[in-house]
């Protein structure tokens, strides 16, 4: 039993359990301790929001920027092409999605190129889906033709 208390995940579990149980105060309003429960709920929600914000910052922003700026030093020319394509593509497409600065003057060109890169990506996505569905249709048609003995089974 004593070994369990040496494991850090137990304390994370208990903290989560207490945070969850504290919400019972929201529904049942236990007498005398209501104010303390309310305070704990505020604290628990704050901690949870902070953890969520940190997770979002790390996963959706920092790691993506990191992946965009890490150069393939010593890599093949194709690696450099991929690196520049994704990094500059990210910058140009993001510039297209800025709305408070008008897309005129010098800012016209990056936003325009960003839109073209975006359309290229969307076209690739669309084409890929169509190709995949055509391949599936081909398989179905082949199967039916074999069932009706129009073409031989392999």
């Amino acid at each position, binding site marked *: 039993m004593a070994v369990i208390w040496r494991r850090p995940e137990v304390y994370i579990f208990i903290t989560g359990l207490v945070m969850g149980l504290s919400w019972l105060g929201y529904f049942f309003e236990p007498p005398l301790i209501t104010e303390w429960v309310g305070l704990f709920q505020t604290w628990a929600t704050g901690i949870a929001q902070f953890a969520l914000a940190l997770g979002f910052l790390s996963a959706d*922003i*920092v790691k993506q*920027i*990191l992946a*965009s*700026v*890490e*150069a393939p*030093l010593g890599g093949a020319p194709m690696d450099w092409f991929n690196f520049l394509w994704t*990094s*500059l593509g*990210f*910058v140009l497409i*993001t*510039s297209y*999605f*800025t*709305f*408070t*600065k008008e897309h005129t003057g010098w800012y016209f060109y990056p936003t325009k190129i960003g839109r073209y890169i*975006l*359309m290229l990506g*969307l*076209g690739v*996505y*669309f084409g890929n*889906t169509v190709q995949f569905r055509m391949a599936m249709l081909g398989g179905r048609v082949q199967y039916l033709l074999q069932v009706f003995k129009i073409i031989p089974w392999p």
Partner: protein
Amino acid sequence: MGAFLIAGTANTHQLPFIVATSDYVLIGEELYAAAAYIFREPLQVASIAGEDWMKFILIAITLIGLLLESVGIKYISDLLRW
């Protein structure tokens, strides 16, 4: 019919199909920007403006990082690994 179709979505999986089938498309965040532009609600406009500032900062970090990393200086990537 002569009618034209305006469509918009923030769902990246549906976006290519909407682009292929519509005359005018609101791509992702443009949908929210359009709402803020039409209604001029301070909360929506402030949200768009705040996101724009964040985007400008991220663009600057990426461009600086891109230039430095290309010449072998790993300052930005080390900073982002905190």
